[in-house]
């Protein structure tokens, strides 16, 4: 269906004739903008959100430090983007599906993934639901409806459209949210996903964290347009741009998006304007491609501080509570980290399980040969050898627990 209007002189459009505003509710000092109304939010949920933000921040700080100490091979922080990720998650029902990119640990925290669960994945030990197969930060939880992270970028976006199509057919009123960066949105899978979702009318929320960078590539070298939001026009999709550091705006926007998705089976695109305050990952050093000044400017827009000021103004939170929470969390991180580090690796068999539903005979032969070899050189394969000793061998409660 195309519009019917005619013109008789060749005028080109570029989209500059309209612009996409940013939805904001909360000022950095914790007060609302004039004309703004906070979304409905009781004390319990407000604190659940805020505590998830702090829990995420503390985890990130401590684990990055652990990585620097050589205790962990790799880490990625959500720092600066907690409001975007947690605000969106808080707007959903807990049974809605989350298909994230990798910087969305806040969503898991909000849903109740414990520090122990994080640590088991980060250290790839026998209790890691992923059985120590993926790099740190590739979390997943079936019970929390959080799809295991996959490193190839943007692949989860069309998958989210498909998942949501299945939810629509199932008719239980659930939807899917998929998070991705403004960099990942350049992939072909992004275009495929948005187009298919709008043609097939699926209840999916495409949530773009526009944090300004894809590793070292600034968004100005990623696209020439006014962010990601105007792409929605190409699919006649509902779209909103929101201040990603404004927890109330993110919450309100995502709640409204969820309504459009679930009640009308229409996909929605949300572009959250935010900033990756930390390095891309523990392997990265941003000083080569951006200024401290730019970082500082954004540090002043810290989403945690903004929400804290709002909570304090409501007398739902205090500096003392803040201090106590931070201390408790720091202690908990260290304790759980120590526990997780000490746990044995997954058993040798986990090398060949889950390739297929059942281990094929050929794979079983490969495993048997490997066992023979390791028995010959146990000292050269301390991890593999440990599970060959029957005393050390572990069951697979890991998978069972995650499944629960």
């Amino acid at each position: 269906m195309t519009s019917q209007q005619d013109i008789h002189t060749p005028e080109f459009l570029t989209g500059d004739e309209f612009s996409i505003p940013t939805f904001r509710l909360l000022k950095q000092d914790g007060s609302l903008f004039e004309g703004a109304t906070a979304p409905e939010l009781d004390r319990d949920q407000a604190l659940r959100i805020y505590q998830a933000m702090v829990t995420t921040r503390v985890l990130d700080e401590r684990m990055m430090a652990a990585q620097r100490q050589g205790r962990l091979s790799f880490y990625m922080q959500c720092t600066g983007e907690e409001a975007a990720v947690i605000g969106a998650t808080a707007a959903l029902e807990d049974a809605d599906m989350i298909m994230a990119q990798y910087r969305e640990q806040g969503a898991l925290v909000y849903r109740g993934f414990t520090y122990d669960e994080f640590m088991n994945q980060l250290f790839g030990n026998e209790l890691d639901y992923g059985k120590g197969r993926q790099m740190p930060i590739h979390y997943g939880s079936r019970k929390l409806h959080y799809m295991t992270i996959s490193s190839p970028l943007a692949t989860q976006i069309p998958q989210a459209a498909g998942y949501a199509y299945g939810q629509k057919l199932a008719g239980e009123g659930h939807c899917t949210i998929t998070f991705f960066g403004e960099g990942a949105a350049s992939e072909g899978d992004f275009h495929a996903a948005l187009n298919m979702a709008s043609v097939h009318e699926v209840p999916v929320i495409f949530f773009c964290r526009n944090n300004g960078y894809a590793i070292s590539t600034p968004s100005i070298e990623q696209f020439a347009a006014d962010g990601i939001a105007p792409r929605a026009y190409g699919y006649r999709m509902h779209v909103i741009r929101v201040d990603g550091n404004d927890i109330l705006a993110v919450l309100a926007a995502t709640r409204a998006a969820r309504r459009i998705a679930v009640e009308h089976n229409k996909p929605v695109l949300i572009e959250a304007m935010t900033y990756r305050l930390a390095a891309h990952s523990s392997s990265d050093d941003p000083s080569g491609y951006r200024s401290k000044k730019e970082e500082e400017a954004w540090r002043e827009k810290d989403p945690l501080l903004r929400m804290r000021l709002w909570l304090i103004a409501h007398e739902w939170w205090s500096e003392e509570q803040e201090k106590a929470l931070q201390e408790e969390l720091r202690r908990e991180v260290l304790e759980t980290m120590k526990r997780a580090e000490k746990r044995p690796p997954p058993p040798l068999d986990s090398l060949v399980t889950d390739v297929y539903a059942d281990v094929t005979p050929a794979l079983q032969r490969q495993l048997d040969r490997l066992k023979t070899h390791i028995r010959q050189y146990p000292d050269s394969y301390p991890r593999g050898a440990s599970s060959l000793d029957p005393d050390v061998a572990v069951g697979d409660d890991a998978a069972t627990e995650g499944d629960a």
Partner: protein
Amino acid sequence: MPTMNMLQAINNALDIAMAEDEKVLCFGEDVGIFGGVFRATSHLQEKYGRARCFNTPLVEQGIIGFANGLAAQGSVPVAEIQFADYIFPAFDQIVNETAKFRYRSGDLFNVGGLTIRAPYGGGISGGLYHSQSPEAYFAHTPGLKVVIPRNPYQAKGLLLSAIRDPDPVLFFEPKRLYRASTGEVPEEDYQLPIGEAEVTREGSDITVLGWGAQMEVIERAVALAEKEGISCEVIDLRSILPWDEDTVAESVLKTGRLLITHEAPLTGGFAGEIAATIAERCFLYLESPISRVTGLDTPFPLTLEKEYLPDHLKIFEAIKACVAF
């Protein structure tokens, strides 16, 4: 028992699967009202509605991405790629996602419900881009299953197994046989095993192995060889991944000779894998080098397609050379 061609058998299998389980969905380019460019999905939209059988936009990476998501959710998607030559835009979704979904999540999530159907192969004047046989690309990818039927009976039974298999299956259909191959096909539901080769003819001098459309070519070659007094054992591999080493090895231990044929180019083709494995397992029993009769190491041509293809005459000559070694 009714006679069906391969398209009818496939259509019939899809029909049975959709009737039985409402979680089964069929989609892809032009599969809706049109029933697919080859008509494998004819009448399915009529019967099961647009929600369960539908056209997709023209984007293979999206089709498989969408299908992966559906399968992870618990649906049973049967996605069609219009030609196997056009499966490559979905290569990342297949080899990095479909294949690794279960493993990377420790089986918290899997896409075992997924089946991907695609017509493959030459012999229809299709040139470079309507003729390819890409099975070897996928056979190097643990986590996938790759199945290829040789006739309507096999097509129906294997496709029903593929759809119900707990692992994702790539189902390549020899399009040259779509209408050319006909045979008796039971009306009722039945399944044929995935991962098991079938000995379609017993013999003692040489084992001749293939899959899909090559089985018919092999039969013609073997007829010529038998006339010359060469007794051939013929095996249809059926599953390329995982493949049935034991059946092949057992046969070669008996015959002492092996010829493998496929349409795909020689280098990196799946015959190499089979030859390497069997040469190792049957080292002391091989009476002649394992012979591979395949497409040339070039893109698929058009005018000289006949010259390019591993036809019955090339196989016949190779059989003789093996036996005379």
